[in-house]
């Protein structure tokens, strides 16, 4: 599986309150909820994002609240992958559980610029910045976590195991 798209770039400690502000958490409709993604730090995001685009951020992406709405609104806006120097642990679990591909790679997070075209090969973890020609290697997932991803999320992986 691969992805290729334009980069939306953010800094350190992007928290789940700015990914999806709590004032919208009473919205049950995923499409409506997704229209508010990132609006407290980037009002242009939902206007510009195209299916397949890639989000890149520095350290501790997704810190704060446990709200699973955060990776969901990113995914529902068509983002193919989030690359960050590090992820907050609840966001990391949530992204895997709902099937939003994420990659940890500090070098890529630092070097890639907003607006670059980036491609990702999920099988190898190779990230290529096609604008600059640089390539980066993300950390592979542990086998257990890869199993959740391969089964399209946590609940399906539990069912596949007969739990």
């Amino acid at each position, binding site marked *: 599986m691969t992805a290729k798209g334009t980069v939306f770039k953010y800094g350190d400690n992007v928290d789940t*309150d*700015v990914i999806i502000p709590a004032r919208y958490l*009473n919205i049950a409709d995923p499409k409506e909820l997704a229209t508010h993604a990132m609006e*407290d730090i980037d009002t242009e995001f939902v206007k510009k994002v195209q299916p397949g685009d890639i989000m890149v951020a520095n350290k501790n992406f997704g810190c704060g*609240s*446990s709200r*699973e709405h955060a990776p969901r609104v990113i995914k529902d806006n068509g983002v193919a992958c989030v690359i960050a120097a590090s992820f907050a*642990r609840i966001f990391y679990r*949530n992204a895997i559980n709902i099937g939003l591909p994420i990659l940890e790679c500090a070098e890529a997070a630092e070097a890639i610029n907003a607006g670059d075209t980036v491609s990702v090969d999920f099988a190898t973890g190779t990230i290529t910045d096609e604008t600059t020609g640089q390539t980066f290697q993300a950390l592979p997932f542990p086998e257990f976590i890869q199993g959740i991803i391969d089964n399209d999320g946590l*609940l399906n992986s539990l069912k596949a195991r007969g739990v």
Partner: protein
Amino acid sequence: MGMTMTQKILAAHAGLDSVVPGQLIEADIDLALANDITGPVAIRELVKADMDKVFDRSKVALVMDHFTPNKDIKSAEQCKECRDFAHKHDIVHFYDVGNMGVEHALLPEKGIVASGDVVIGADSHTCTYGALGAFSTGMGSTDIAAGIATGKAWFRVPAAIKFNLTGELAPWVSGKDVILHIIGMIGVDGALYQSMEFSGPGVASLSMDDRFAICNMAIEAGAKNGIFPVDEKTVAYQKDRALHEPRVFEADDDAEYARVIDIDLSTIPPTVAAPHLPENTKPVTELAGIKIDQSVIGSCTNGRIEDMRVAAEIMRGKHVADGVRTIVIPATQEVYLQCIREGLAEIFIEAGAIMSTPTCGPCLGGHMGILAAGERAIATTNRNFVGRMGHVDSEVYLSSPAVAAASAITGVITDPATL
């Protein structure tokens, strides 16, 4: 190799003799928790996956606390989804308006969590119960859905930072100041993926409410959990509350820690975190004089009876400054009632503050005290992110109840010692 307290609890729940940091395990859980925001997402996932079942109706808690009493029609619909699920599955620990409280104050108070438990909650501040010597951690709705259906969860065994506490807190300094001080020291990802284990001779002097506040904000340092050893205070707290037998786990003497940090409690000043990260901490004296529009005293961090008492002590016989909306929110019905019985309610109201029914409300910008553009609050809550309490151009300063109460009186950020 010796194990940390957290590692021992996890090993016991995974049926293993020992675990090591980084190991992926599957463990039995003693409780799965969700609220009116995260619960509906979990319920929908269970239905969608054709797993609409509950592993043990007495080991699931649903607390309607975030947007309650229902702030609008959409919130009412979300609570209804939770209520219907709770009734369908005969959930024992379903808490709605009338008996609810802010979840992380409510569950320990009701004795639903006990020492040695493994608790997962679809709320990041689930780490609060580490104060009881339990392993508890926040997760998302899908993880909690899996826990509700199966009674199990997967964990990556965390390494730990040991905080060796010595000394005793100075007057007007509380557990909130301790955790703000620590987050300022190590940063908002300073304990990422790790446990924060508190130990040392200084632990004994900390009240249970101090410990709840400290563990509550472990997540604000990126930690998986915060945890205190079980001592006489923990045992006394649980004596007439615990619904099941507490189990005591202790860290091994030869446990390995990623870091050991010594903290002399007597040197910690009243501490405030400036916008927009909990790590932007300064002694209150360095921020004194900053004008505020609102003071919020409550939340899962600081809505307990000691918090109410210290706020009332400062506000007794005084009046809040003109233009400072002061909102006091006891975290549970029991705390609320205690405020009335002890005369604290009278003090707050005579001082020009309001008292709200328990709710998370303003902490996450839900309702009951939202900020306009350009407004500034001091709050005993746990996050000061951009837009957290309202408008994207508003500001939140995080503090203890003592500092928030003193600031309400003067209208500017104030060291309670100077009142």
